[in-house]
């Protein structure tokens, strides 16, 4: 990790004309860290990444890379490299020239360009493609070349904007593993924007959940999954989405759908309306868990290893259950399901999570 460099954002803001898109982001990225930005479409992930790259002007605030203020520097002088969703390969140049373009612009001696291009091509296993044009490559190969172009620059920070979203599912998995391997091999700081839950969970050292230009939570994949700060993060991370059920606080637990569930703590003043969150994968069929309730299954989806049951509680609120056992559960059946009260999250009316008094 010799050339790993950290990065910091301080009160970074961005407005397009009179619309504010990014509202004061503070973030510290450690050297060598793999940080993933996730968030719903239009929340400003790309804009933030492009500001780090220097492609978008920073309206206010400061960006520093490796302790150096780069807020007003040219993209080429920030020590970054970017991989675009569209690959953005130069269509009229061979793969070799694409890889070497940046070095050529910097007047690097020919011999060094050669060695660095060869090294990058070797890492990405694209040596046989060097003489081809981008138009003669498959999507996966193009993305490799695009990543190769980033590697050749020997950047401090790699920036990826949804690099895999144009690939088919299978290729996406293998490229994801490739990127993880690359991160391990190069040890650079990487910032990665994605829509894909799996990419975020598997690649990230830390996940940054964004909404409407603000950070909702920063944490390891485990933290954002197990300890979401609020209802938005809880709903955004995890697939299928966490179940949200309307209920009220009672002494020592919560009540919903006519059932009282003891949580071992009183989340708020008894009688307060709250939202109760339970992940589909934490509900099991049968009465094995401590908190049991009965549901009616409306229909189910069979996915091979698992089955998603779309059920309703007696009061009509819907509930998704991930059922991993072999037994097939058809539609229109009544079931008893249960869960561990320790897995139940409680959110206040404002959406923030009400912590357990431990």
């Amino acid at each position: 990790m010799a050339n790993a460099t950290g990065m910091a954002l301080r009160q970074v803001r961005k407005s397009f004309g009179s619309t504010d898109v990014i509202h004061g982001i503070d973030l510290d990225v450690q050297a060598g860290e793999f940080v993933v930005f996730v968030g719903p479409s239009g929340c400003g992930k790309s804009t933030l990444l492009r500001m780090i790259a220097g492609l978008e002007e920073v309206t206010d605030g400061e960006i520093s890379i490796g302790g150096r203020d780069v807020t007003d520097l040219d993209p080429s002088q920030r020590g970054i490299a970017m991989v675009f969703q569209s690959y953005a390969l130069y269509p009229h140049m061979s793969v070799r020239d694409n890889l070497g373009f940046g070095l050529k612009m910097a007047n690097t001696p020919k011999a060094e360009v050669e060695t660095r291009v060869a090294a990058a091509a070797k890492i990405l296993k694209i040596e046989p493609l060097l003489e081809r044009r981008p138009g003669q490559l498959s999507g996966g190969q193009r993305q490799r070349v695009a990543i190769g172009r980033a590697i050749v620059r020997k950047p401090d920070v790699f920036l990826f904007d949804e690099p895999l979203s144009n690939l088919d599912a299978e290729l996406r998995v293998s490229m994801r593993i490739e990127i993880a391997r690359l991160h391990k091999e190069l040890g650079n700081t990487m910032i990665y924007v994605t829509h894909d839950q799996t990419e975020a969970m598997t690649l990230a050292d830390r996940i940054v959940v964004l909404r409407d230009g603000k950070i909702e939570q920063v944490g390891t994949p485990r933290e954002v999954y197990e300890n979401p700060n609020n209802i938005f993060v809880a709903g955004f991370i995890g697939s299928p989405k966490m179940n949200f059920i309307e209920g009220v606080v009672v002494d020592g637990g919560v009540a919903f759908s006519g059932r009282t569930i003891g949580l071992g703590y009183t989340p708020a003043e008894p009688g307060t309306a709250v939202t109760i969150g339970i992940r589909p994968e934490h509900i099991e069929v049968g009465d094995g868990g401590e908190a049991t309730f009965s549901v009616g299954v409306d229909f189910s989806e069979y996915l091979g290893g698992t089955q998603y049951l779309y059920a309703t509680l007696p009061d009509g609120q819907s509930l998704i259950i991930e059922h991993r056992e072999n037994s097939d559960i058809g539609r229109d059946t009544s079931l008893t399901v249960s869960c561990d009260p320790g897995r139940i999250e409680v959110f206040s009316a404002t959406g923030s999570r009400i912590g357990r008094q431990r």
Partner: protein
Amino acid sequence: MSMTIATPLAAADKPRRRARKSRQWQGLLYIAPAIILVTIFFVIPVLFTVWMSFHNWPLLGQPSWIGLDNYIRMFSDTRFAAALSFTAYYTVIATIAIFALAFPLALFVQNERRGVSAYRTIFFLPVVVGLATASLLWVWLANVDSGLFSPILRAFGVTGRSANLLATFNNAFATIIVMVVWKIVGFTMIILLTGLQSIPSDLIEAARIDGASRWQRFRFLTLPLMRRTLALALILSVTGSVLAFDQFYIMTSGGPQNRMISVVYYIFNQSFVSFQLGYGSALSIVLLGILVALSVVQLWLLRVGDEK
């Protein structure tokens, strides 16, 4: 198993082939109007012109077959040589002038800035004026007494007394070039603009990250990616210049000392002033050959054929 599937497939094949055939006829039907128009207004006139060019063809009286004499005569025709060299000179200067201005203009109106559509409109406006109309307008603008330029030049002390801009070759030529650039540049600008806008912004951004300066991005990305558009603009500009006639006929009537006779002007003189229709036809055919050759050379230089 395969038998049962193969049989209905083979049966289904025949109607499909018939459908394809009828679709081909449909295709022909669609391009028929174009073919008919091109035949009537291009192919037949060209063939007739070729036919005429082998004759001594006076306006009145019998045409007589003279074989290749018209073509042979061209080689010793010094006035034709002069017209050719003047046209070449004009084409080079006009094309350079148009591109030298159209490119910066296209780059200028490419970015979404305030009032950009107003600029585009203003630059394009002269294009919708006919060339003959524009020439007449500029004859007036360049008039010694009642025009616009002479008084302005005098007011700013450039010339001592009223100057006749169209009186000397250099001034008249410069005036015509300025007029043509004013008239044509908007059109070339729009063509170049479409080329510029077809370049994905991602590419430019990638190049910025790669550290390419503004000039390097232009040189290594914009220009090569605009090759087709450039070829189109260049061919239109060169063809237009080689065929120039109106401006010389209207503005200078052939210019001081008859030094502004373009090839088309010369053909016009031969055909409709001297009434040597056969010779005029031969000259036209040669001009057509020159234009085709020029276009081929330009397409080859810009390698439009090879795929990315």
